[in-house]
């Protein structure tokens, strides 16, 4: 009986493999797109910084100090500067100027610094994308801080001897405190888990997960729906195949193809982006559970849909929130708490988290055991659900 069941599964798996093999166009797509997407996404997320933001610089002060500041901020790679006329009237019309930011050094800036009442610089920001706006602002502040520091150092160097003599008359404690206050207070940073600040290392599980999720769900979703559409499902149902034999047999070839794709994507990441992979056994387990979960979801959609068109539509509707909310490319912590609960439903969320725990944190199983459990439960539920829906077809 056991042997008979294995043979039955093998017949279904072989047949399903032939379907994949015969559909040359889809096969070509399945084999070439994942490595191409890996290259594309990998380069897209290679650096996380903003660079070359078109910006306008307007110097109404026209003093050597203003020019010196301009020389400093000109070197800041965040911006791609263009000099604007000092007489410009509508600075706020960023769109008309074709820039995303405008920085104005106001008239009398140098004088105000000399007079002990520093005038602020004026910064106009395109705040349609708040992330860009705040990054730009931070960059301006950073350049200004650097500039101020240089100015202070020069001032100290040029202080007349009398000032130091005067200082020596102060009590030691006050002098020390004064020096501390004049120093820049620093931070000694220790970058852990990703010391080289490689965005690609963070993004790789997202790429693997996203591509596999897309392929497995859509391809799998079409399998049963296709049989239903062509009428072969009934032919299948009158054979002595059991539902679990059909479900397992249909899944196996897709599992093999997806596993191959995981290897291809990892290979491309390793060779092209120099991403290192640790603990192959743990990673393999995480990938396997994730694949089973995704294939189960595809099967569930498949058993639920009447036609292949419906199956694709359901897949897209399911995948859309997954892409945005799964934390594949950006940390989940950006999302509000309520939405994060929704994210926890998606297999991709758990896959990315577990993958990062292994590959970036080199953490032990106790850190990602709960993610594995969720994936496992997901796989079981979806497979049972698919088998149950198949049962309903009979009635």
């Amino acid at each position: 009986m056991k042997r008979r069941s294995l043979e039955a599964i093998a017949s279904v798996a072989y047949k399903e493999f032939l379907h994949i093999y015969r559909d040359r166009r889809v096969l070509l797509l399945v084999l070439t797109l994942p490595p191409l997407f890996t290259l594309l996404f990998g380069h897209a997320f290679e650096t996380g910084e903003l660079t070359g933001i078109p910006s306008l610089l307007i110097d109404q002060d026209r003093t050597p100090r203003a020019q010196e500041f301009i020389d400093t901020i000109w070197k800041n790679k965040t911006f791609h500067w263009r000099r604007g006329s000092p007489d410009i009237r509508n600075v706020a019309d960023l769109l008309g100027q074709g820039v995303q930011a405008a920085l104005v050094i106001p008239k009398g800036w140098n004088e105000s610094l000399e007079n002990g009442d520093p005038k602020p610089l004026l910064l106009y920001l395109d705040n349609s994308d708040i992330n860009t706006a705040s990054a730009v602002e931070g960059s301006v502040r950073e350049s200004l801080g650097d500039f101020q520091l240089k100015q202070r150092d020069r001032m100290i160097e040029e202080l007349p001897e009398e000032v130091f003599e005067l200082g020596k008359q102060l009590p030691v404690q006050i002098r020390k405190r004064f020096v501390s206050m004049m120093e820049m207070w620093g931070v000694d940073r220790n970058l852990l888990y990703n010391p080289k600040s490689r965005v690609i290392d963070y993004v790789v599980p997202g790429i693997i997960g996203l591509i596999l999720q897309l392929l497995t769900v859509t391809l799998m979703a079409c399998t049963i729906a296709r049989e239903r559409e062509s009428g072969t499902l009934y032919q299948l149902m009158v054979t002595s195949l059991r539902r679990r034999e059909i479900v397992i047999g249909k899944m196996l070839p897709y599992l093999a193809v997806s596993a191959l794709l995981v290897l291809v994507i990892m290979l491309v990441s390793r060779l092209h982006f120099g991403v290192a992979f640790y603990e192959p056994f743990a990673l393999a387990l995480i990938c396997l559970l994730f694949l089973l979960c995704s294939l189960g979801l595809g099967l569930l959609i498949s058993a639920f849909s009447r036609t292949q068109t419906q199956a694709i539509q359901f897949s897209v509707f399911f995948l859309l929130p997954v892409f945005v909310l799964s934390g594949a490319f950006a940390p989940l912590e950006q999302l509000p708490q309520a939405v994060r609960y929704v994210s926890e439903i998606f297999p991709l969320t758990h896959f990315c988290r577990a993958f990062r725990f292994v590959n970036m944190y080199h953490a032990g199983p106790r850190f990602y055991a709960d993610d594995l459990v969720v994936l496992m439960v997901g796989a079981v539920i979806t497979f049972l659900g698919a088998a149950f829906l198949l049962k309903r077809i009979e009635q």
Partner: protein
Amino acid sequence: MSEPVIRLNHLSKSFGDVHAVQDLSLTIEPGTIFGFLGPNGAGKTTTMRMLCGLTHPTGGTATIDGADVWKDRQQVRTRFGYVPQRFSLYRDLTVLENFRFFGGAYGVPRARLEARIDQLLGLIDLREKRNTAAQSLSGGMRQLLAIGCALVHDPALLFFDEPTAGLDPVHRQQIWNLLYDLSHQGKTIFVTTHYMDEAEHCMEVGFIENGRLLAKSSPRELKSSFRSRLLEIDVEPLMPALVRLRSLPELLGVSLRSGSLRLYTAEPEQLLAKWRERWPFQDLRLLGERWVEPDMEDVFTAYSQGYDGILKRGPS
């Protein structure tokens, strides 16, 4: 007499308010070619799908070899082969691959499978097409392939749902010859059709309409259940004659056959005598008349229209 292969006991199936099959009771003996006749939508396919365990009865029971077709469907499935109305094999797979898949799906042992496939390829005459994709076969060949795949596990019972629908006469004949061969091998065949001429090929015929069984008997008995001979007349012009005659109260019905009109009436001799005396239609010309043997179409028309006057209502 041996135990019936199929036994239907007040079998019914409703989809909501639609009663597709109502209170169907019949038995089919082993080795019979049973023809299930009726117009489209009469409930033929639904009955067959219930027998195949693809849909559950909403009333009554049906058994195959004594096993319930729904409750024991997993066990019953190995006992029959099913050829559905629509071509339902894998189009992208070759003839051989389809055979091998269904062989595996029915659990035919590997050791026996190849020999069995070769034998079936010979039977359906597709040896030379063994490596052709199913989608490249002609309609008739596809149907032969579907029959072959349903035979792969050598079942004693076969269900054919309109096996000749849409086929040319040559392939229709080829398929019926195949059914005879199978019957000759001792297999029981349950076949639905809406071609009345094909009913003549069957050993037993069941008429179904609106989900109800109207009659079940051999074609010969059914035809002899006509009380009277059938009158056929040639009239000109034909179409106005058909319309005029249909409204005649003495006639139960009129049907058009190869340019002649077949008249259903309880007393054809009287009618003819009356017409010989005086032909009532000024604008129609009676060219001739003859007596004909009723065929299955006449019988079915009489049963389905309830022409009780011309049927011997005996015990059925």
